């Protein structure tokens, strides 16, 4: 936003009207705190959340009344809406802080070496030991294979959309990539189940899970690659053509390398997204309490599935394992996000 706009919108005191000074708002706030304290003493209300909500509501009412009496209804409304936006922002950040904080607090109990080096084989659900080694291996293999398939596939679709398509087919493909973005993960799982497991009788395996994840990764990879390829300036392509370089070599040697950092970012975000997918894995990989390092044969474990299964057990030790699994999952996903954003920031498409 430009400086002029900011000055205007923050508003110099208008010529005709009084403006509420900051101390008046602070006094209002103090008054609300005092009143809330009195309510607490009078009603013996113990819930801090309820008291906080009462305080916020009281402040909004009080601020509107004070502003109404000094500045008029237009400014009172303006102040009310500003406060509401701020409240919405705080309200949106709360669940993130809540989920992360609660997961860390609960997950640290079993965040030990046993958890990372042992599987659940021959471990009863009520036992305090046992770990997610098998699940971590499974997740890494499944997501790795999914990435190996969907990245080249997605890049080729993006190349087609940006460099080659010039008509009806391109628009249709682009539209269906959008539709694929909205495909529920459980439907992707059901599809691979119907095709790979039921129709082709391949059985549950890590690879079947990878195929389901490919369907979920593909649209994200295509969209981010497409955005990046569009950012590559035409002058680079034209310079290459002028030197007599064939189009496909131009794409492979000039366009794709230029867009590479952006593509890496997109791929990592896509990987982070499918890393936590549970529903398709539940249907296709099936879960396993022992280590199975071969993704092409037999059911495997997976980290999100491990969390889902452990929380379904009614033993405290199992639920503790679920929390630690969730913590590991969050750490991996956040790390991928962080790396992706860093790559995006430090290596923009160079013109």
């Amino acid at each position: 936003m430009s400086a002029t706009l900011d000055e205007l919108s923050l508003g110099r005191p208008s010529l005709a009207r009084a403006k509420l000074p900051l101390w008046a708002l602070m006094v209002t706030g103090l008054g609300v705190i005092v009143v809330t304290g009195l309510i607490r003493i009078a009603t013996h209300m113990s819930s801090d959340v309820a008291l906080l909500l009462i305080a916020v509501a009281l402040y909004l009412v009080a601020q509107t009344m004070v502003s109404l009496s000094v500045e008029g209804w237009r400014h009172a409304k303006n102040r009310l809406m500003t406060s509401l936006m701020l409240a919405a922002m705080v309200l949106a950040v709360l669940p993130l802080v809540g989920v992360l904080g609660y997961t860390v607090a609960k997950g640290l109990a079993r965040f030990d070496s046993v958890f990372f080096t042992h599987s659940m084989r021959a471990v009863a659900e009520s036992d305090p030991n046992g770990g997610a080694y098998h699940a971590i291996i499974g997740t890494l293999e499944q997501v790795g294979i999914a990435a190996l398939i969907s990245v080249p596939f997605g890049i080729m679709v993006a190349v087609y959309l940006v460099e080659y398509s010039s008509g009806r087919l391109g628009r249709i493909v682009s539209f269906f990539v959008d539709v694929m973005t909205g495909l529920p993960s459980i439907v992707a799982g059901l599809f691979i189940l119907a095709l790979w497991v039921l129709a082709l009788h391949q059985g549950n395996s890590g690879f079947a899970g990878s195929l389901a994840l490919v369907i979920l990764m593909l649209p994200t990879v295509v969209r981010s690659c497409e955005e990046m390829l569009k950012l590559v300036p035409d002058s680079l392509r034209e310079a290459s053509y002028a030197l007599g370089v064939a189009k496909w070599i131009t794409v492979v040697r000039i366009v794709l390398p230029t867009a590479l950092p952006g593509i890496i970012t997109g791929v990592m975000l896509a990987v982070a997204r499918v890393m936590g997918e549970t529903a398709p894995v539940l249907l296709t990989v099936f879960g396993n309490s022992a280590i199975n390092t071969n993704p092409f044969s037999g059911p495997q474990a997976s980290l999100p599935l491990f969390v889902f299964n452990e929380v379904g057990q009614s033993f405290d030790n199992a639920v503790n394992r679920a929390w630690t699994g969730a913590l590991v999952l969050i750490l991996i996903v956040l790390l991928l996000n962080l790396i992706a954003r860093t790559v995006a920031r430090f290596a923009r498409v160079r013109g």
Partner: protein
Amino acid sequence: MTSSLQSTRHRSGGDTTFRLTAKGAGILVLLLMAAVAAFLILKAIPAVSQDKGNFFTSFQWDPQGTAVFGIAALAFGTVLASLIALIIGVPVAVGVALFISQYAPRAVARPLAYVVDLLAAVPSVVFGLWGAIYLSPNLIPLSKFLNHYFGWIPLFASTNQTYGKSVLVASVVLAVMLLPIVAAISREVFVQTPKEHMEGALALGATKWEMIRVSVLPYGKSGVISAIVLGFGRAVGETIAVAMVLSSTYTISPHILDPGGNTIAANIANRWGDANDSISQGALIASGLVLFAITLVVNFGARAIIRRGKAKA
């Protein structure tokens, strides 16, 4: 983009191969979507034809025993939970989008947007865990409050005052999950509001809120509507978080505070374990097909709104 140049150059064999490979990848996307529909239909038809009840109007889900199963209760539960999630989540999401795009200073806006995006990165199984273990007991006071003062509204009525794993909890979890999507898309359209509109409003003496109401909101309207529709699609398809939070029942009940409720997606996840004959598997695949159809319609709708909005702007 570069087709005019292409015709002037000599075409090598590598060029043709590469072009055809790219085109093939594009066509493969179409085939993949067609295959999704085809295989779901293929596996659903035999099961639905053996259904002793009506697949669209039955409440029960008993494909193995009486062979009566239907998605009426599941579809109702899906729409109910998703709509309540929208009612909770959308005002907050639009508020967040306005705050980040219009109120926050630039230095704060970027990290805030990043934080909201992070919310979208949290895996749904973690939201499910949090919803089932933390949120569901902690929403009981609110449920009691709503039931005590607003119990005369059927939505907040309760048959046995037990609360706990209710549709309300699922809706709050879904609201948190659709919030980042709605907020991100809304933010993007709000940022694109023409500066002339905004400065014009301010020059006429509008307050900041009045400026937003007359310039930012009308400009972003179609974008926000399509964001809401896409958020609805996300909520409808969400599986594991809902499966972990709800204790599944097969009734149509508007009482969102009572334990129970179910959705199409959660039902698939919950019942898959004991579906070991072709009719119960086919029944679940048929319900997945319905879910697929719902999300297709929702997505078509959202894209159409975006396109119409673009044509107008």
